[in-house]
């Protein structure tokens, strides 16, 4: 896992062909097993609806953003406010899967981004879009430790 530049990135090498991995990340019957544990629904086209269900968690709804078989799949899912609202940068994050064929199988990279724009009001968002945001998340732990030390030292 890596946390940088307001993105969370994780990757894995899978000993299976790209086409098989593509099926697993884009078909409802598979998504409902390895991602959700209580089923999933997906309309696999840009703008199509996606829903992921968990037994002990509310269903999460979203929208498919990109479908480029068998290399790239992206969707937004709604994390704040009305769970069935249309995904926007203010209520959802973007998740992007990239599949790359390698001699030993398929490398899957997933990037989830947009946490910094959640619930930002319009002015905040405009400011964020203008700025080249620094990699604040990598330094959060250090800053928290430092702040805790300063607080304890007085």
């Amino acid at each position, binding site marked *: 896992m890596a946390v940088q530049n307001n993105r969370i990135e994780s990757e894995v090498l*899978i000993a299976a062909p790209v086409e098989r991995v593509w099926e*697993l990340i884009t078909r409802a019957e598979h998504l409902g097993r390895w991602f959700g544990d209580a089923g999933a629904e997906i309309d696999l086209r840009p703008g199509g609806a996606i829903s992921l269900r968990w037994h002990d968690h509310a269903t999460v709804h979203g929208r498919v953003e990109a479908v480029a078989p068998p290399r790239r799949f992206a969707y937004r899912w709604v994390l704040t406010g009305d769970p069935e609202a249309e995904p926007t940068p203010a209520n959802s994050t973007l998740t992007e899967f990239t599949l790359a064929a390698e001699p030993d199988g398929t490398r899957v990279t997933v990037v*989830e981004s947009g946490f910094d724009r959640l619930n930002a009001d319009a002015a905040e968002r405009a400011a964020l879009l203008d700025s080249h945001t620094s990699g604040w998340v990598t330094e959060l732990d250090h800053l928290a430790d430092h702040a805790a030390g300063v607080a304890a030292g007085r």
Partner: protein
Amino acid sequence: MSAAVADPEPAVFAALGDPTRWRLLGTLAQQGEGTATTLAALLPVSRPAVIKHLGVLDRAGLVTRHRTGREVRYRVEPARLEATARQIAAVATAWDRRLAALKALAEQQ
């Protein structure tokens, strides 16, 4: 699967998403305590802008403020930062776990 979806703290993420605020928070953490005037002297930002950014950080619960005489002094609130760091780690861990499950399923057949 609990923590299947980590619940982000939107106000905190939005507050931290601005580079100037991030730098302001770092400076405040280093100083331990500061006023808009002392912070503006340490940063390439005007005092009114510092006040505005401190307001956003305050509303997100990332700093605390107290008044001594005519001055308002600010301090970083570490608990909130730590909670946010834990949430980000939880989101990242959730992805590691999901990809491990995907790998297991893909390699089954």
